[in-house]
């Protein structure tokens, strides 16, 4: 079999060495890591499940990504890198992925990981995984050696590896005997640097250092979801504290060490506290406003354009995020690989009421009710919905706010009737890249109820285009199309305020709190 492309560790090693050498030139004095201690991390809600495959919840991912590992994951610069895989070799026709596995990787039960475990885990994902579509291109999974699996795809899918590496609901590897179990019935056994100890709902999840952890020595240190991970702490406790005031108080007293999220004004107040470090995890999510294209008046593209032109995005973001925001028109983050430049910029943050009124007239708008669906569970949603409503009233739209709780909002937005606009923060999709973002806007479950044929076709073109350059060009067309049919408005980008005690060393904000390579400085 001819190999046309491969992803190997050596290349990363070289890059890593160069980067390390470069960083060394300006490195701060090296601080000695201290082993031991119990790190207490706070999050506001219970993990719905610790069975990593079956949930796409952030509250679960925060914990499970320290317990389990997938074959591939994203690097710091959001490219797929091998984690439990040694490398991957893709056949010339793009349908066969031969994946040798890392040797000597142990599960938390002491057993060594084999190709059988990998096959069983991936097959379980195909059946129960929360984002099964990412393995949908796979026709078969074969064990082709004690430490090797080969995935055969139904057809060439150039974006397969990016999708496969997605941390949204990661395709983690668990022991074969666990893979046979139903969702949520497994013992929480992974290969990660920390192992599961106990879960007391509404109280805490406790993890313990896995002493037999086989670190990936091909890297110099951690890199995104992968790299060389080192567990310094004896134990890690994820405490569930729903009340932000109580969580902050616990940080101030030193009862807890790390807050996964805290209110922006509180973070500003704590900035002058020498015992506390504040981290601005930015960018974290897109704030979006999605139209129902099946319900009048939002079924009319001209009407939607009027809304786009009317909005003062800066005002919405400033109020919704309490000041932690960035304004950018692009449907990928500024400066990222797929950033499409100025395409659509002229429609963004225009706040031109006169032009918007003219567009409304052109659309034949006749004071029909425009129902804004929003929720109180995620405060940013509710606040954005209210500000959008007020701005639309100013141009003569009969905007009505329908603020409900999150499950109700999800139920309503899945209906063709009963709503016109919906506020939604998209966190993981823009992070995962163009395919993940656009897939939410196409096909049967498209956010705007009706699919846009042109966007659907462009999405197919995107996922079947071989080269990165080609995909960039397709994404430019996608962004252009987004600003033509106005099915969704990007309001802005927001971040996450995080905080730790000053004695927490090594913590780097990321898509989940990485508790490996973190240690507690002894006083």
């Amino acid at each position, binding site marked *: 079999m001819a190999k046309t492309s491969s992803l190997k560790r050596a290349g990363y090693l070289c890059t890593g060495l160069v980067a390390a050498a470069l960083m060394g030139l300006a490195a701060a004095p090296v601080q000695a890591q201290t082993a031991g201690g119990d790190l207490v991390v706070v999050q506001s809600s*219970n993990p*719905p*499940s610790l069975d990593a495959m079956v*949930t*796409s919840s952030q509250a679960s991912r925060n914990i499970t990504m320290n317990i389990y590992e997938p074959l591939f994951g994203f690097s710091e610069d959001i490219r797929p890198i091998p984690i439990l895989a040694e490398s991957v070799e893709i056949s010339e026709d793009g349908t066969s992925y031969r994946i040798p596995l890392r040797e000597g990787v142990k599960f938390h039960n002491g057993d060594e990981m084999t190709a059988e475990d990998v096959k069983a885990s991936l097959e379980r994902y195909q059946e129960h995984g*929360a*984002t099964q579509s990412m393995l949908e291109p796979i026709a078969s999974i074969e064990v082709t050696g004690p430490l090797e699996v080969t995935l055969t795809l139904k057809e060439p899918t150039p974006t397969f590896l990016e999708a496969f590496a997605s941390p949204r*609901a990661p395709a983690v590897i668990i022991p074969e005997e666990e893979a046979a179990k139903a969702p*949520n*019935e497994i013992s929480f056994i992974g290969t990660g640097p920390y192992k599961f100890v106990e879960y*007391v*709902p*509404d*109280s*805490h999840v406790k993890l313990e250092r896995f002493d037999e952890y086989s670190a990936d020595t091909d890297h110099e240190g951690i890199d995104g979801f992968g790299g060389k991970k080192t567990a310094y702490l004896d134990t890690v406790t994820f*405490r*569930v*504290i*729903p*009340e932000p*005031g*109580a969580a902050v*108080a*616990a940080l*101030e*007293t030193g*009862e807890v060490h790390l807050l996964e999220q805290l209110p922006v004004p509180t973070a500003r107040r704590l900035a002058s506290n020498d015992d506390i470090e504040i981290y601005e995890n930015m960018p974290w999510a897109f704030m979006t406003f999605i139209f129902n294209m099946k319900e009048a008046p939002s079924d009319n593209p001209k009407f939607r354009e009027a809304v786009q032109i009317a909005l003062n995005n800066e005002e919405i973001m400033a109020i919704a995020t309490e000041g932690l925001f960035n304004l950018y028109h692009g449907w990928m983050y500024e400066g990222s690989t797929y950033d499409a430049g100025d395409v659509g910029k002229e429609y963004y943050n225009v706040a031109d009421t006169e032009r918007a009124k003219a567009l409304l007239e052109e659309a034949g708008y006749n004071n029909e009710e425009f129902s804004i669906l929003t929720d109180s*569970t995620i405060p940013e949603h509710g606040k954005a919905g209210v500000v959008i409503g007020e701005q639309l009233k100013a141009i003569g739209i009969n905007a009505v706010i329908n603020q*409900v*709780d*999150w*499950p*109700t*909002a*999800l*139920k*309503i937005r*899945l209906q063709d009737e009963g709503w016109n606009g919906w506020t939604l923060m998209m966190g993981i999709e823009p992070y995962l890249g163009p395919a993940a973002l656009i897939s*939410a806007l196409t096909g*049967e*479950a498209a956010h705007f109820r009706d699919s846009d044929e042109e966007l659907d076709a462009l999405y197919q073109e995107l996922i079947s285009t071989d080269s990165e350059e080609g995909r960039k060009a397709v994404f430019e067309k996608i962004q252009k199309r987004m600003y033509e049919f106005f099915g969704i408005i990007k309001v802005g980008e927001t971040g996450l305020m995080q905080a730790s005690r000053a004695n927490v060393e090594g913590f780097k904000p990321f898509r989940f709190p990485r508790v490996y390579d973190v240690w507690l400085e002894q006083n």
Partner: protein
Amino acid sequence: MISFLVRRLLSAIPVLIVVSLVSFIIIAIVPGDVTAELAGSDSTEAQRAEIRERLGLDRPMIEQAVRWYGRLLSGDLGQSYLLNMSVTDAVLERLPVTLSLAGIALVLAIVLGVLLGIVSAIRHDSWLDQGSMSLALFGLSVPDFWFALILISVFSVGLGWFPTGGYVPLSESLFGWARSMTLPALALAITQMGVVARMTRSSMLEVMSQDYIRTARAKGMRSHTIIFKHALRNALVPIVTVVGVMTGVLLGGAVVIEQVFSLPGVGRLIIGAIQRRDYPIIQGGLLITAATFVFVNILVDLAYGWLDPRVRDDR
């Protein structure tokens, strides 16, 4: 006495049936279901329909209710959709937290409230009376979640005497348990303390002007014997009457306090279940909470009879 107990227990059954029926009806009215939580917010209608069918949520409400009551008769409250455990286990696991919180709060409310009320009554129209009643009024007026945050700010962040939250089981450490429950119980007790203080004061003032108190004084009986042996016992009767109602208020208030102090109690369990539409937990949790409330009221009725033999004889 036994026939009284049996009658009270039998009269509890319709109450519990009504509670469970109301919870069923509310669930039927509230939009949203557990499928989005189980299948993910970007799941397809087909995936959600498959889950609804598996859980029996596609069946008519009447059929679901009949099935639920059928299981209930055999003592089975069903299985949580999301917790991977039975409803009974989930609730019983958390009941000690809520009961100890409400129990300590009840004791605090009664002890502090009665003391304030007595002080007010025996120092009627003095600055002590004014001060005690101002404190009682403060307790009645202040929202418990705000008071909870103030307690955390002063006693945890400021003085460092108590933890900011979390629960230490009694089996692990008596001292740790007491520390973890003090501030939550105080925050929960504050409103009821105000109620008890005001009731005790008015009740004591009324009793203190009775002939038998005057007679006791005339006999030269010591002041504290008159207050605690004769006046207080009689003044307590109306207070005991409200203890049953107070228990209900405290169990309800525990929901907020458990949230602020991150205590893993029944209140948080039910709130979490409502937010995620875990219907069996909502139904089972409400039923067990209501049963607790009814049971406490039966105990209160018994205590009432003990305090006032006339009531017992009337039965």
